[in-house]
Structure formats: structure tokens, C-alpha cells
């Protein structure tokens, strides 16, 4: 193309687009926080249901992120080292599938696994009388399914960035495979793993579709908001939503600060 555009026009156009994106994200969130009156916010905060739902969301999502960490890091390491051989592309696709599946679909699919008549759920129900649906375990299952790819992808990229010569150096200095993994790969991929953990946690907190199908109760914040929105009135749901938003923002700002403080030159 041969438009005669000056540098100024070019960058003005780019910055305009960028400003639109930032506004697009910030405007609804800021509007939501500033909408409810203090009285309504306090009322929402004093409502036991609201507090419980927010606590549930935080706890289950955090547990989800922890589980994702322990299950996802080994997988990410194997993927980064190319140890799946010719199945590599297949595994990669499978890991990222939850990103493409509508979350209600994921919820229904999971129901047929851990539900009372699901392949695993039936076994536990028939032999031990254990029911998964409607429990914290079901919430975590739903959250894990949709948020796991973030941790795996991020950790895998981190491991891939570790130069092969560091690994060789570690081996020749006498370290075992595990010692090398623990002393070299984990610390050198720390940033990637941490940000993967944060993304997974954030994704888990925000999950609604899969969770609501597997466990309406114990109630989590997104379900509580939806519940209030459909059954009571907008003002209650606004208050709960605003409180949840504030708490999430605070946590992520704090965590980002902690992670950045850790960063070595």
C-alpha cells in the first residue's frame, strides 16, 4: 500500500485503537464498582450468602490452581522436552481443547463422568455412596477442566526457554534428572509457572458455565450473582458482583506485586 501517512498519523491511529481496547475493558468494571451505593455494598457484605459464596469461590479456585500446579507442571515439562515424540501435536491439541469448548458443554460432558450415572461417578456412588455433584469436589473438577490449559501452556513455554546447555552442565556436574529438574528447570521457569498459576486461579474464580451444571451448591460467587439476578433484583446482584470484582482485583494486584518483587535482575 502506498498511502502517504506521516509517522504522527500512523501512531495516532495505533494509540486510538489501543485506548479503545483499554476503555472497553475498564469502563464496565469501573462503572460496576462505582454504581452501588455504600449502603448497598455494606448490606451485601453483611449478607451471609454473599460472604459464603465469595469465600467458596476463592477457596475452591485456589485449590484448583494448586492441583493444576502439581498435575500440570510435570506434563508441561514432558511436553517442553519433546518426550511425547510423535504424539506431541496430539497431546498439545488435547490440552488446549477446554479453551475451545463452550463451558456449558464442558459441564455436561463432565456430568457424564462424575455424575451419579457417570463412568466414574457411578462406581463411587454404587460402592461407597459417594456423590460428587453438588460438592466442592465437583466445583474443583469443573474449574480444573476449564483453567488447566493456562498453567500447562505457560509452564511449557518456560521450560522450553531453558537452554539445553544448562541441563547438560547440570548432568556433567553430577546432578540426577530430578535434581536438574528441581534446581535448574523450576527456578529458571519460575516466572512462567507463577504467571500460569495466576491465570489458572483467575480463570477458575470466573468460571460459571461448567460449575453451575455440576454444582449449583455449595454456591460460588458467579452462581450467587446469577441467582440474585434472576430471582431477586438487579441491585443485590450488582452489590455482590462489585464486591467480588474488588476482591479479585485486590488479590491480583497484590500477587503481581509479589511476583515482580521476586524478579532478579
Amino acid at each position, binding site marked *: 500500500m502506498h498511502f502517504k501517512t506521516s509517522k504522527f498519523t500512523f501512531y495516532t491511529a495505533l494509540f486510538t485503537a489501543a485506548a479503545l481496547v483499554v476503555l472497553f475493558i475498564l469502563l464496565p468494571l469501573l462503572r460496576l464498582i462505582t454504581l452501588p451505593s455504600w449502603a448497598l455494598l455494606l448490606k451485601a457484605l453483611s449478607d451471609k450468602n454473599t460472604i459464603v459464596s465469595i469465600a467458596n469461590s476463592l477457596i475452591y479456585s485456589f485449590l484448583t490452581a494448586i492441583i493444576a500446579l502439581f498435575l500440570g507442571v510435570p506434563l508441561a515439562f514432558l511436553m517442553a522436552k519433546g518426550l511425547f515424540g510423535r504424539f506431541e501435536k496430539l497431546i498439545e491439541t488435547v490440552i488446549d481443547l477446554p479453551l475451545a469448548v463452550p463451558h456449558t458443554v464442558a459441564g455436561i460432558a463432565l456430568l457424564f463422568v462424575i455424575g451419579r450415572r457417570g463412568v466414574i461417578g457411578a462406581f463411587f456412588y454404587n460402592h461407597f455412596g459417594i456423590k460428587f455433584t453438588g460438592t466442592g469436589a465437583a466445583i474443583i473438577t469443573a474449574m480444573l477442566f476449564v483453567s488447566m490449559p493456562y498453567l500447562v501452556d505457560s509452564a511449557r513455554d518456560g521450560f522450553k526457554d531453558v537452554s539445553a546447555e*544448562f541441563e547438560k*552442565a547440570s548432568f*556433567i556436574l*553430577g*546432578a540426577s534428572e530430578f535434581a536438574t529438574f528441581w534446581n535448574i528447570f523450576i527456578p529458571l521457569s519460575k516466572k512462567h509457572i507463577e504467571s500460569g498459576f495466576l491465570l489458572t486461579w483467575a480463570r477458575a474464580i470466573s468460571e460459571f458455565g461448567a460449575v453451575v451444571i455440576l454444582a449449583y451448591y455449595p454456591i460460588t460467587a458467579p452462581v450467587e450473582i446469577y441467582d440474585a439476578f434472576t430471582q431477586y433484583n438487579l441491585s443485590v446482584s450488582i452489590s455482590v458482583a462489585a464486591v467480588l470484582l474488588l476482591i479479585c482485583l485486590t488479590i491480583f494486584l497484590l500477587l503481581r506485586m509479589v511476583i515482580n518483587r521476586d524478579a532478579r535482575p
Partner: protein
Amino acid sequence: MRVLELQSVSVTRGSFSLKEINFFVNKGEILTVLGENGSGKTTLLNTIAGFIKPDSGSILINGRDIVHLPPSERGVGYVFQTLALFPHMNVAANILYGTRFHKISNVKDRLGKISSLLRISHIMDRYINTLSGGEKQKVALARTLILQPEVLLMDEPTAALSPREKSRIIDELKTVFKRLSQTVVFVTHNVSEAYRIGGRIGVMENGRILQIGNSDEIVYHPVSHSVASIFGEVNKFKVRVESCNSGMCSAELGNGMVFFLGDFKVCEKILLFIRPEDILLKTVSTKTSARNNFSGIVKDISFAGPLVRVVVESGQTFIVLISKQSFEELAIKKRKPVFLSFKLTAVHAVKLTE
């Protein structure tokens, strides 16, 4: 005593291969492996270190075959081209890394000794990205030497250094290795570095070690043209032996006869190498003690750093290197007649195998 010995080691890596590598390194010796990029030097080191499994052959350390051992158990130290210092650890942690995996009772002693020997005691708390190229070099060395490896492998260790740091580091390395009587295999593509290290040199090309010997043997008795040309441009002539009597041979070359030492059959086709700096160039035909004398015409003159490269046509094309000073004194010009002379011993004859 042979600390490291390779016996017909062959390795295949895709389309590249190491072919029948045989050599040994004695206790306290530095063997330099000299070769172009892609000649197989790093593959050779990786095979000795155990990162690559050879197809066949044995690798002995102190007489024991280590081919089946993993890298961590071979008693081999390796300083990588990139040095591979761990960026998330400080200097002390880097040096001590390997000691965690070995039973060493006097770790502190060893750390003190090695860091004072390499003069890096003052940087123990620094992180790697704050170090100079030379300091990094020494930390990588200390990290390897603290484990007292039987053999130390060094892969182009000065590649990332400035020319000034380079020559200083080489001298320091030599001193350190001597003090520790450390056995070393030192890989480089730099001829002057190989010279400077001084021990035996193994010339490598296309996955083969073509010749091993001290630098004089390699410069003056190259086994082939590729070895001869490693030390720069060389005159190469294919001739037919005319006579050979008690070690003194002659052959027709260009518009004259060339005399050289050797033991060949009459009529045998051989290769002669004459280093361009070993040929004396004059503008008048005076009698010299040199056995070989040719006359010719200057065809081309070009400047090669501090030297002048003169191409002389004498039935055969000779390349001669002379100093700038003699170039000016002799007032050499194109198309002028000149005389060449060189000693019997300046001619290196090799059986034609290529």
C-alpha cells in the same frame, strides 16, 4: 600415563558422522583439537562427555571403558562454549553446584583453593550477569575444576571474549592447568590459539582426525593438503618423482627441478607443500646456499596485513609471502622478473592419497 584414550570411536548424527577416532591424552597434557566449524569438534566432546552414544569403539579413562556410563559418572569436566553458568545462582552457588552430588569432605578448602588460584575470591557473591567475559570464563572453570575431573573438556572457551582478554586468558589457563597437572582436551577453530596453547594438536576435518602432533610437525610435515592449508595458504604441487637416492629426491616442477627429502619410488606421483613464507624472493640471481632455485615473472601483488603476497609465474604458480620492508627494498613490480629460492627442508613431500 594415558588418562583419556579413544579407540576407533565412530558416531552417527543424522547425515554427519565421526569416523574411527583414535587418540590419547597423557596425564597433565593439553591436547588441542583444531578444526573448522562443522568439523565435528563439539560432537567429539559430547561423545566423550556421554551426551552422545557412539556406534562403536571404546572411550577409556585411566584404562576403564566408560562408554556405558552416564555423563554424571564419567569423571569428565566440561566447559561449554556458552559456559552455561546458572543465572539464578551467585558465583559461589555456581561453583559449589556439583559438590552437592559428590562425596567431598573438604568442600570449603577446595572452594578457597580454586577461587584463589583463579583469582575470583572477591566475586563470590555476585550474580552471573554482572561479570565480565573473563570472570565468567573463570567461574565456569572453577565450577568444573572443584570436582577434580580426570579430564577437562573445553569447547571454544574463548569464543565470547575480546581479543585482548583472549590472549591473557589462554596464558592464565595454561598456568592453572600446569599447577593442577590437569588433563585437558581443548577445542578451537583458531590456529593461533592452538599454537599458543603449545601442546599436541589434533587436526579435525569432516568428522576425522587427520593428524596429531606438535605444531611444528603439523606445519612442516602435514599428512595432506587439508592439514597443510589449516595454517593458511600453502603452495601445493603434484609432481612425479624423477630420482630418489638415499633420502634425496628430485622432480620436475615448472621450468626447473625441485629437490627434497623423502623416500619414494621413481615415477611415483606425490604432493609437495611449500609454505609461502619459506620462499626467499630476490630481484637478482645471486648464489645462495638454498638447493632450490627458480626464476619467474611477478603476476600479482596484494597486501595481507603486515605481509605482502606475491604471485610468481614460473611454469608453475608460486605464492610467496614477504615483509613490507623487503617488498619496498626490492621494489617489486608486476611483470618484473624475479628469482625464488628455498631450502631442501622447506619442501614437504606427501604420498598422493587424495
